[in-house]
């Protein structure tokens, strides 16, 4: 055989093999037995121990395994979870909860009043230092009044107590685990949820399997994985290749493209997060209200929403989003650079000034791009910003400093009012006594009238009166402009079309316990 013939045979052989291996052009649809749902999220939980959790990603993963007494539905209504009913005395200082009977933790321990007390006591223990202990702020004592009944004794009436108890971080974990890991990072939490954590490979994924003893509807999908892909575009690719079945936080530009993909469903949902640029109100030039208002007039929020977010965000009309109880619309500040220049001149800065804007990158969708837009637009009125990016955790350390040590004038940040109650969004950020580092008032804003209104609103149990108080407070807060109010985020999630029943929650959670596969 000549070399030429041999070569021809070889080519033929390879071609035949290729045809056989690829199914010769008539591919049969691959039948896959799906038993695992993989959800890719942008950030890894900092912890799954309720007392150490601080972020939305932690809440999303955690709530599949660990449940709280009360659940907040997508519409903001409160429904029973581990508590079946609740009641308070007339003054609102004693709350009694009937607990669900026959519930077991993943380790077989029974769920009862003692377990609730152990968890809440731990949350309140100053030695534990739970980041979100303020959620239970005025709770003084947790009393076991029956095997399935607990009573919370409050120092003073606390109107938002129920929505605070629905917060994902007030989770119930097995009392046995509490003893073992007390004060330690619990790692894989043992809760009562529809899924139990099998393993947590740091930096990669949390693996869960269905809890066969679950008290409610047992989920259809046996295995659930949360993988962490921080790079936006990589997360989108993971969905397109099928490596992930659902992803959270789709970048706006990719959302348009995915919308055209017949194998992918894009879900748009509102969020409870407001993004803003805070001013340090005790330092020049931001100690001048006119300057702060001028800057609010100098930024075109509309174009940020339309261009950067492709319309899937909302110009902020108050310091909290409209789904929150107590919201009232007072804004937005009209975009008017001429007026901004006039106001700056009036305040004694006819030529503007230079200032540094600190901002995170990758924490909120498009955050650094938004910072650049703000820089560009403020330059138009003579305010020259130097942008400084900081890594998220060091950024928070940098911002949460006592007032006399703080070194910043402007910072970009967001706040999600996840209890859907104005107290959480206003008291923590605008009450004069909530200054950093203990509180979240990083602008060190103080207005005694606002303080008074917020204090009265949180102890008042009459919803109508509360709403009126918050309306007054919001008006003052808006006028004082300790923030440059920007926009309310929207959420964009996406999933393969064979996944149904996912809950895209406005609280930035993606829940899978009702999910199922279709062909």
């Amino acid at each position: 055989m000549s070399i030429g013939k041999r070569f021809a045979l070889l080519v033929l052989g390879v071609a035949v093999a290729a045809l056989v291996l690829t199914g010769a052009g008539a591919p049969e649809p691959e039948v896959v037995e799906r038993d695992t749902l993989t959800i890719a999220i942008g950030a890894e939980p900092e912890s799954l121990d309720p007392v150490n959790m601080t972020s939305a990603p932690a809440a999303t993963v955690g709530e599949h395994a660990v449940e709280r007494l009360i659940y907040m539905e997508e519409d903001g209504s409160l429904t029973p979870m581990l508590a079946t009913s609740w009641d308070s005395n007339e003054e609102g200082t004693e709350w009694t909860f009937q607990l669900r009977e026959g519930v077991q933790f993943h380790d077989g321990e029974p769920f009862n009043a003692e377990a609730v007390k152990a968890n809440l006591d731990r949350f309140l223990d100053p030695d534990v230092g739970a980041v979100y202990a303020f959620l239970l702020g005025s709770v003084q004592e947790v009393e076991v009044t029956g095997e399935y009944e607990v009573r919370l004794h409050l120092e003073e009436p606390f109107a938002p107590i129920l929505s605070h108890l629905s917060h994902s971080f007030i989770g119930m974990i097995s009392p046995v685990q509490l003893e073992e890991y007390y004060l330690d990072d619990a790692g894989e939490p043992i809760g009562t949820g529809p899924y139990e954590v099998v393993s947590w490979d740091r930096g990669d994924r949390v693996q869960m399997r269905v809890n066969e003893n679950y008290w409610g509807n047992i989920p259809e999908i046996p295995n659930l994985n949360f993988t962490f892909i921080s790079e936006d575009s990589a997360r989108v690719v993971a969905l397109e290749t099928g490596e992930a079945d659902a992803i959270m936080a789709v970048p706006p530009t990719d959302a348009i493209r995915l919308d055209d993909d017949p194998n992918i469903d894009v879900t748009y949902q509102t969020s409870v997060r407001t993004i803003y640029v805070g001013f340090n109100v005790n330092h020049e030039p931001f100690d001048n209200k006119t300057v702060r208002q001028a800057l609010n007039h100098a930024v075109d929020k509309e174009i940020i929403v339309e261009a950067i977010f492709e319309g899937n965000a909302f110009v902020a009309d108050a310091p909290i989003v409209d789904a929150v109880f107590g919201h009232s619309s007072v804004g937005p500040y009209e975009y008017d650079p001429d007026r901004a220049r006039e106001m700056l001149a009036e305040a004694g800065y006819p030529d503007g000034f230079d200032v540094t804007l600190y901002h995170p990158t990758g924490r909120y969708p498009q955050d650094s791009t938004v910072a650049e837009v703000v820089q560009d637009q403020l330059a138009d009125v003579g305010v020259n910003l130097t942008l400084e990016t900081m890594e998220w955790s060091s950024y928070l350390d940098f911002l949460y400093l006592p007032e006399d040590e703080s070194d910043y004038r402007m910072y970009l940040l967001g706040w999600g009012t996840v209890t859907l109650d104005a107290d959480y969004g206003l008291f923590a950020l605008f009450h004069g006594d909530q200054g950093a580092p203990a509180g979240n008032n990083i602008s060190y804003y103080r207005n005694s009238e606002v303080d008074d209104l917020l204090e009265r609103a949180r102890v008042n149990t009459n919803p109508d009166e509360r709403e009126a108080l918050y309306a007054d407070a919001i008006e003052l807060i808006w006028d004082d402009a300790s923030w440059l109010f920007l926009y309310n985020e929207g959420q964009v999630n996406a999933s393969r079309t064979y996944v149904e029943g996912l809950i895209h929650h406005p609280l930035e959670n993606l829940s899978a316990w009702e999910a199922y596969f279709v062909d």
Partner: protein
Amino acid sequence: MGTVEQVETSEGIVVRSRRELWWERLRHWFRNSEWSQVARHLLRNRGALIGLVIIGTFVLAAVFAPYLATHNPLETSLTTRLMGPGSEHWLGSDELGRDLFSRMLYGGRISLNIGLISVLIGVAIGVPVGAVSGYYGGKLDIITQRFIDIMIAFPGILLAIVVVTVLGVGVQNVMIAVGIASVPIYARLVRGSVLSVKEQSYVKAARAAGISDFAIIFRHVLPNCLAPIIVQSTFQIATAILWAAGLSFLGLGAQAPMPEWGRILSQGRGYMRMAPHLTTFPGLAILLMVLGFNLLGDGLRDALDPKSRGR
């Protein structure tokens, strides 16, 4: 006599204009001097020539950026963001609607500046340290070299990240950081050369003649170590540009709205599927510029080595 001179040649005394004379001297120098040989050798090396052309193009583009740019590199236009390459925006527009072509031109300035200045910093510190360490030897040498060992133990980019973390982010600090990170390379290189040069008889003669150490190092030793320093610097410019782009990519270098290539690349990677031009062009530019300096460095190394010159 004015512009003419009488010159004695083999053909007798002729009168030549001063201009002619200059040309002749220049020709003579070009044919016979050490540097002219290097230059000629370099131009015969195809790789080096390509490198020179690439670098020349980038330098010209950087120098004339204000004239070549079609737009203000900082001017945003949110309504025309993420446009592909076309007649309005030659290389497309970025996520804020800024013109990529104009940004790339100005970005070239930044990259070249970083490359040159950081190398100068590295040379300015590394060469004297290496020279002194090699010339004096002894305990000073041992201590210096152990310190250099520690620095070399860190990968250069890591060292640069550490320095930037200490100094704070920004282009100036990146130059300093990359400069400092290249100090050990020069110190080690120069020390080696000095060790071999200082044994030469002309150095011994200079010492015997009572010339000061300082003068010996700078007038007699270092000029003879120049070749490896030049070659290393060419490579080091490429490395510096790459490190600086890396630091900016990580958010430690150039800050918004500076059109640094690494930063453009980093910002663009979020739009890789929708607007691939935002990552392709700056990536190519970094690649080409680094390639150019590496090709030139290769050529210089051959040209400056008398042993390889004949081949």
